[in-house]
């Protein structure tokens, strides 16, 4: 397990299986996007790409810690972000 994966495993999530709150609406934008800021800025490794040109950027929304940074960091406005529906998503206990 990577260091980040081990940390994410410590966080409590209550994922909504019926609705995805972070989506990339237009993968065409990602294909053209040289820097792919989302991969770096996301503190929780939600965005993943296999480094193969033309392949899509995957979004593991279930492990999103809801910082809200991805939509600000994406230069193409490709990230459609809302907070999860009531009662779902990340739960912090330690402050």
């Amino acid at each position, binding site marked *: 397990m990577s260091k980040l994966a081990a940390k994410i495993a410590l966080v409590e999530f209550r994922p909504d299986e019926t609705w995805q709150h972070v989506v990339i609406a237009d993968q065409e934008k990602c294909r053209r996007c040289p820097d792919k800021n989302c991969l770096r800025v996301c503190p929780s490794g939600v965005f993943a790409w296999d480094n193969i040109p033309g392949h899509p950027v995957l979004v593991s929304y279930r492990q999103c810690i809801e910082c809200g940074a991805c939509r*600000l960091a994406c230069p193409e406005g490709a990230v459609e972000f809302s907070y999860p529906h009531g009662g779902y998503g990340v739960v912090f206990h330690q*402050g």
Partner: protein
Amino acid sequence: MMSDWFKTKKPHKLPTRAQPATDAPAPRKYDAVVVGAGPAGASAAYFMARDGLDVLLLERGPFPGAKTCGGAAIIAEQAHELFPNFWEEFSYERIVTRLDYWWLSEDSAVTAGFTSSRLSAAPYNRLSVKRKNLYTWLAAKAVAAGATLLLGHHVAGVLLDGYQAVGVRVAPPQSTDYLADLVILADGANSLLAERAGLIPPVTAANLSLYAKETIALPPATIEERFCLPPGQGAAIGLIGYPTAGYNGTGSIHTFHDSINISAGMSVSAYAAGGFSPGDLLERIKKHPRIQPLLDGGVTTEYGAAMIPEGGYHAIPPLVHPGLLIAGDAASLVNGIHGINLAMWSGFYAAKAAFEAKKNRDFSIRKLSLYRTLLDESFILQNMRTNAKAATLQRDRPYLFDLYSRLANEAAYQMVRAYPMPVKDKRKFIWRKVTSLQPVGKIAADIWQVLKVVKG
């Protein structure tokens, strides 16, 4: 303040006009609905309910405090004015009696600090707090005063009748509309609600900073030994320079009862430019030779990240709208990294304006701008105004924190070294070392800019 009053008086264009979700009979109408049970929203709800208003407080998390993390210490002296002896009502972590700033370079630290047992007497100066405990206490206080709190309710949008806010729409699973004379948005940094309703300009990557945090468990006695603290007392350490790898940003360490919170972050736009992630920053700072021994043997119990508005005074958007007020982080009311008190006080002022509006049955901008006036006259906006230029300086000279931390460390290192040379030659030697990191002309220009800001 008159000039600001006119600013908020201009009409606002609101793009959408929402229709009620169903044809069901109109639900009960509240005097005020507050979005977000953080320090801003819960304070607003408490003071409004105490003054007899019918208040609904909506929170998307399963309990108050579940959705935010990082830090934190509360300036108790300021909160005490609003909530006398509040420390008796909830469990805080430690009484902060040691306040430090550490300017870090790769391998060393220049430190400035103040520690005094005088800070350990009530009303305390600062208390370290876990958000869950603070937020839950404050929301319970609002409920005890008569407010209705609904958890697990995510507000998806503001309901508008023309320009006038008339309520909010809750997302699934409840999918309910709640009507109110006044809506208070206290939904934290990155207020999607205010932005989507066209009430504030879009939030930008330059004005928001992203912090990663880790909570690391250690026995209380170990914490006290490592931070040189008497039992029950705590430390708050601000970390500048090295933590943010050449960019302006900060880190912090807060001691809890049996754990430490360590956070590091910088502006969202800097990550893209720097090519690393918030998690990388945190790992970097944890490995620093002055910090690693403080954490040694600790067990990480929680990881997290959150944004904080750091645009300063000039980033404050219009806060007063027809039938709607914006408070706390949603209003960009953060000074440095202090936001909890500003949130509480803005909630308090919003409640005062709400009370006057209700008394006069007038929820127009004109009546509600009492909120902005009270804020303007308060320590909140006065302090933010004083610091306004500092925020700009950081943006214009993004290397300041890191470079001058390195300069200070180099100078201090050379100063403590005992070279076999006369003191006069040693001074020249140090000067040459320091100016090899930044040319004299540029140092002078930076100092001049900093002085201009400090002098106001």
